[in-house]
């Protein structure tokens, strides 16, 4: 029996690559691995929460999963979906023989590619955050649920400022708890040294018994105690040790804790303050924020409770949208009835403050999402359904025609 040989010469690589990326075997393996990753990711979610599991298993090129204590290196969801996208594009759209009979399958594969492309766009370009407002408050500022940044701002005597220097959250949150990183900018007369960043921490007074177990330096009667990261990443309260080193004079040390930011939309954040020269500065761990191109004012928050208990029965917000050169637009945002405008979607998410009693003034919280591929899953399903429908009709017609011909052939 003749043995198949493969030509590995460089000139044949494009052909080998093409054959590899268009093969059914690759598609099968990728789909099987996606099933495995989905299973492991779902199980991991139980221990580590939804966000952490999503990042580890689905937003990654590779993932190390421990199975009964043994580390397994697996391709991450991002890599698998990229490979599947290439495989389907090359195999099902380019390589496949173009004929009318295959039109339905071609369309349905295109729909599946739309779904994958939509997933990629969501991963790469979407943003999600929240806006919390008391009645009468107006804002265009959206805050991140999970991303914290370091803000350093010059302050006047009343604690006011118009600008800040920002160490972005991607950089800040990549610092390990045992790592030191130094930053400087010509605009500030000091270096900034971060001595370890904890994803979840509590400042504990040294007089408290649990302070004995907290590692780290004592500053102003406190130590920063590292906590296990919460399953719900938005509940983590990060902290860090920081040092400001002016060109002249002693360094200024501080503990920064995200709990000094705000728990309520009316609170003003409480920065650590220090002076270099004649200028007062504030340093703060603040939530990453961005603005939307219009302002939203909460006119009224309607909150109904079940009789006799404090559980919410219904809550909705009456708001006005303000935009320059456009008339003010009053509207309602309810559960399952979001406001969609200028690419942003405002969902009625929750309310606060926690533990509020009947009669207390309450704030309304909106989830604010911006996803360019928001509707792509719907469109892709429509396209895939149309493709499968066409394929079904073609197959039905072919079958019926063949059935009619068969007896005729048999008779002849």
């Amino acid at each position, binding site marked *: 029996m003749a043995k198949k040989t493969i030509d590995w010469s460089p000139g044949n690589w494009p052909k080998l690559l093409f054959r590899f990326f268009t093969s059914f075997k690759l598609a099968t393996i990728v789909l099987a691995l996606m099933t495995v990753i989905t299973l492991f990711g779902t199980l991991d979610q139980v221990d580590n929460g939804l966000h952490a599991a999503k990042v580890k298993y689905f937003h990654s*090129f590779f993932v190390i999963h421990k199975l009964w204590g043994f580390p397994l290196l697996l391709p991450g969801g991002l890599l698998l979906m*990229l490979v599947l996208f290439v495989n389907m594009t090359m195999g099902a759209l380019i390589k496949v023989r173009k004929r009318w009979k295959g039109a339905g399958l071609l369309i349905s594969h295109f729909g599946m590619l739309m779904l994958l492309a939509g997933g990629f766009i969501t991963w790469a370009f979407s943003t999600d955050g929240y806006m919390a407002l008391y009645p009468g408050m107006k804002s265009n500022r959206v805050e991140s649920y999970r991303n914290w940044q370091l803000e350093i701002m010059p302050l006047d005597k009343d604690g006011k*400022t*118009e600008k800040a220097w920002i*160490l972005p959250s991607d950089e800040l949150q990549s610092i390990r708890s045992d790592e030191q990183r130094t930053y400087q900018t010509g605009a500030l007369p000091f270096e900034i040294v971060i001595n370890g960043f904890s994803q979840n*921490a*509590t400042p504990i*007074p040294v007089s408290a018994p*649990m302070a004995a177990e907290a590692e780290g330096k004592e500053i102003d*009667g406190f130590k920063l105690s590292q906590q296990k990261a919460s399953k719900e990443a938005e509940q983590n309260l990060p902290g860090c040790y920081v040092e400001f080193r002016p060109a002249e004079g002693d360094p200024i040390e501080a503990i920064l804790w995200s709990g000094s930011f705000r728990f309520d939309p009316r609170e003003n954040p409480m920065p650590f303050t220090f002076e270099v020269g004649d200028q007062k500065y504030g340093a703060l761990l603040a939530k990453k924020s961005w603005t939307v191109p219009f302002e939203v004012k909460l006119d009224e928050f309607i909150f109904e409770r079940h009789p006799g208990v404090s559980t919410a029965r219904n809550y909705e917000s009456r708001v006005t949208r303000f935009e320059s050169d456009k008339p003010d637009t009053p509207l309602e945002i309810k559960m399952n009835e979001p406001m969609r405008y200028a690419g942003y979607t405002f969902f009625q998410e929750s309310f606060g403050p926690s533990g509020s009693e009947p009669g207390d003034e309450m704030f309304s919280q909106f989830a604010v999402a911006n996803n360019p591929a928001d509707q792509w899953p719907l469109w892709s399903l429509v396209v895939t359904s149309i493709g499968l429908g066409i394929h079904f009709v073609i197959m039905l017609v072919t079958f019926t025609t063949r059935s009619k011909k068969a007896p005729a052939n048999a008779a002849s």
Partner: protein
Amino acid sequence: MSLQRLPASAHFLMNSPVAKTALCLLSGTFLLSACTDSGPEGPEIVEQELPSAHRTFKLVETSRERFRYQTRSGAGDAQAGSADSGAPRLVYDTPKGWSEGTKSMMRDINMTFGENGEGECYVARLPGAGGGLAANVNRWRGQMGAEPLTEGEIAALPQKALFGQPASFMSVDGDFTGMGGAGTKSDYRLLGVILSSDAGAVFVKMTGPRALVEANTKAFDQFVGSLDVSTGAPGS
């Protein structure tokens, strides 16, 4: 080896500028993913104008205020919190036979009971998770000479309502060595309730000779159940 035997669509893939761009983008994604760590130093700090709603900051004098530790009132006050500030205060029912002890910086409420005041019950609050449930449960067990519990055992601890929320309850017998290790007291019992929430952690801890604590268990439950926060006028 030429591409002669490849289908025409494959030639398109290899030669089309659109396809080449797509491949470059694809490889660029891989390269970008390898470059997320920008190293120990760099010009990452950027200047930004702050939105109008984020331009006023509260200036505080101490780390204690910045970390949301409320100033405890001095010894002898009837209840925690400043009586004339209108700030939220802890209110509770004092069980029969219990008496107010001296408050300390870390204790909002400090009670003693028993003939010689050998039984003790206090309430303490900390912002954040206050060291974490597991660390505190096992620290208290350590004070009683008991082995630490596993995470699973801690998660399975019974619950009691504290401020209307489910809090972990523990009971452990042993020889008690309190803070500072000032002597060991034999045949003691420790009852503890720990509540960890977004707003902070609350600890209620009772210690005393086992028989005395046993006799005061109902009083402990009554005390824990009566704890509340009042925002009303002083004395309410």
